[in-house]
């Protein structure tokens, strides 16, 4: 893997970087996977946030529900609210966070709690946080 211009820079990883890989988007998955590989190799420093991981979890779960239950993605959030048991049957959203947890050289900024920049927490804490969010707390939104 050849180093690329700007090596050593900090790169913010938004949810779409992980989602292109997870959903194997033909137009972007290879480039996004290569970027993460460069970060893991130490060519860049990856930065992300707990909100990003939450978004990855949420949209991966919607994709899993859409694929498994064959329903439109737009209908998935309402469907999930009516079928909370899907969380036990469809573990790929958890798997996505587990895999990101395993990645090297990605710092998670804890902006979720009002801190930015220097305040960070490690991926184990993020993973623990997401695991503590029960399906009901995650998806029983306003109006329920």
């Amino acid at each position, binding site marked *: 893997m050849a180093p690329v211009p700007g090596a050593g820079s900090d790169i913010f990883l938004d949810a*779409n970087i*992980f*989602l*292109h*890989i*997870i*959903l*194997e*988007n*033909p137009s972007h*998955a290879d480039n996004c*996977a290569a970027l*993460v*590989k460069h970060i*893991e190799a130490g060519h860049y420093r990856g930065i992300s946030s707990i*909100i990003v991981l*939450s*978004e990855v*979890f*949420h*949209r*991966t779960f*919607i*994709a*899993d529900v*859409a*694929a498994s239950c064959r329903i*439109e*993605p*737009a209908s*998935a*959030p309402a469907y999930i609210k009516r079928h909370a048991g899907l969380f036990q049957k469809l*573990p*790929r959203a958890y*798997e*996505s966070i*587990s*895999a*990101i947890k*395993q*990645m090297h050289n990605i710092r998670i900024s804890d902006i979720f709690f009002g801190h930015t920049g220097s305040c960070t927490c490690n991926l184990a804490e993020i993973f623990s946080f997401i695991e503590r969010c029960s399906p009901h707390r*995650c998806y029983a939104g306003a109006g329920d």
Partner: protein
Amino acid sequence: MSIQIKARYNGKNFLPLETVDLPTDTDVILEIKTDPVMRLRGLVRLENKQWIDQIINDPSLESY
């Protein structure tokens, strides 16, 4: 037919962490992914390719 399930290796065998609807004694092929990027790649496969862009980009699907 392709089915992805998670399993844990105990040093000798793979223990499935999910159940699948297959007859007993069905022979299968295992594809082992341990690298985190490989674990992410194609984790969810959508037959409708238009849904990929929708799920990634549609602001109405945001979690907050």
